[in-house]
């Protein structure tokens, strides 16, 4: 990856982090809910003991619903930071599962 692209992505990430600090619900709905959805999907694909293709087909159907579910949860829960922290936790744990799981195929 070129330094220019890395610089742009880094700036974007810092911007998202700053936005999350100022308004955790909004930025979690916009960004962290997707990260958590994708990471949990990837973790299940990597670690759940089932046929690879079946897992991908099933998760592809469920993924939009999980994503919307996370966004809804952010505004349902009274805590300003609660769900954001859960989402970051889910992303982190899922990321660890993805990193330490053997290749599914």
């Amino acid at each position: 990856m070129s330094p220019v692209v890395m610089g742009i992505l880094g700036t974007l990430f810092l911007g998202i982090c700053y936005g999350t600090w100022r308004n955790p619900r909004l930025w979690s709905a916009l960004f962290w809910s997707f990260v958590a959805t994708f990471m949990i999907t990837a973790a299940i694909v990597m670690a759940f003991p089932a046929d690879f293709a079946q897992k991908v087909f099933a998760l592809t159907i469920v993924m939009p619903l999980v994503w919307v579910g996370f966004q809804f949860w952010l505004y349902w829960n009274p805590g300003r930071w609660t769900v954001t922290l859960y989402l970051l936790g889910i992303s982190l744990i899922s990321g660890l599962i993805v990193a330490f799981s053997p290749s599914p195929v």
Partner: protein
Amino acid sequence: MANRERQIRIYDLHSWTGVALGIIMFFVCFTGSLALFHHEFEPWEDELRRGEITSSPVPIHDKVGEIVERHSGEFEPNFVNVSLPHGEHGHYDVFVGGPDADGEFQNVEARISATTGEELAFREEGANRLLYDLHRDLAWPDALGGRQVGRILVGLVGIAFLLLILTGIVSHTKITKELFTLRYLKSVRLKWQDSHKVMGLWTSPFAAMIALTGAFLGVIALLLPLLAFVTMKGDQEALIAELGLEQPARAEISAPMIPMDQIGPRVHPETGNPVNFIRYTNWGDQNAQAVLNYKAEQRLLYSDAITVSAVTGEIVPGQEILLNNGPFAYILATFSPLHYGTYGGIVLKLIYFVLGMGLAVMSALGSMMWIERRRHGGEGNKSDRFYAILSAINTGVCAGLPAAAVAVLAFDKVYWGAEAARYTSMVWFLFGAWLLAAIFGFMRGNDYKANRELLAVTGFGLVALAPLNWIVTGDVMWSNFSTGAAGSAWFDLAFILLGSSAVFIAAKLPAERPVDKRRQKKAEAALDSDAELQPAE
């Protein structure tokens, strides 16, 4: 208290998501309603598609071989698709494509007469295709990342739509009452609010289905590369292979193809529907396969398909991966027909059209309500001018899109430029016409008048499409209902009916913001009591 706060949060999420994405939602729902008739509209758009379907079409195989041969020096013609004469297709459509020396995909298209076997003049895709593309991928330009980016963006609109439906339902605490409440004779705000709620609640199952299938069809373009990145170290082809979706590789051994006029079952063994489309992979190779597609109009499938070896003619079982790979894969296979309503004939498509237009109107109503509440309902903390500008933009953009869509259909009919530039010309014309309509709406100074005038223009334009078709092609509507041009004649009739309805509705719409009688009475009463309190001079 906590529930009240939660209710407010959910309502805020609903209204802010709606107002932020109202115009794009309107755009996707409106173009989606038109995209439903993409195939049926082809005979109206292109007069060469009209005509009786011959009962004994000439063999096509040698002609296709000739086209492949002609272009084999330019690229490796791996893929050959042939649309056989059926329904609105009175001739053969041939598509030949494959990678060139640099690995770039190249293709050529040709149209062959089913009665003489001669090549006919080829008409490039025009307004019909553009309106379809706008719904599917916003016709996103290559310079900004290409169609995949557009598809993802439409998918994200689907996600936002799902969120809107969920928050909309949850924020309605009295659903059973609101399902049947329409206060048309009260204030403007109540009229719009009740219409929005009634339309939203009654169409919510349809809307949820459209949003979920639409989100999937778009977001899959984002999900697959990301999943490949995580599970296959970025190798998307490996992921596709693992899912059983890859094409068989070439054996690099030349082999003669079985004539496509004879290959495979000509009618589907279960449904009895004739084959209408054949798709070849690895043309001319030992591993060539032909997928024969049959209409599956009354089933929840895009088409029935049978795969055969193009060399031996033997049926290759289990090739339709989404149909033969468990319940989840089958559910995925139903998403596209569910989204485009292809499983219940023209009546179902008409129902989809009405519901789809309802969703578009509901999106526009939501934005109008949001502005109305702030401008006239005391909820806004910005100036009246600010909300007036927002209202004018919303009116111009939403009411301008149907007018621009009608204008581009007319422009396509009279287009005189080079065929290669037809599609690009349609893109520029549509967005130019839309911009002009939006500027008109913005400059009109009265949103009510702008709305009814743009609707009237749309209506008159729709009515004018039928005589325009007659003048340009010579096909008079009333003499064509029992001929091969019936598909075009039905669209002429539909345009006249829809256009007349639009003009009628425009005539009935108010030219000014109706006076809120209750509020006026209150204000008058307050003035009277103020006057009574004034000391007599």
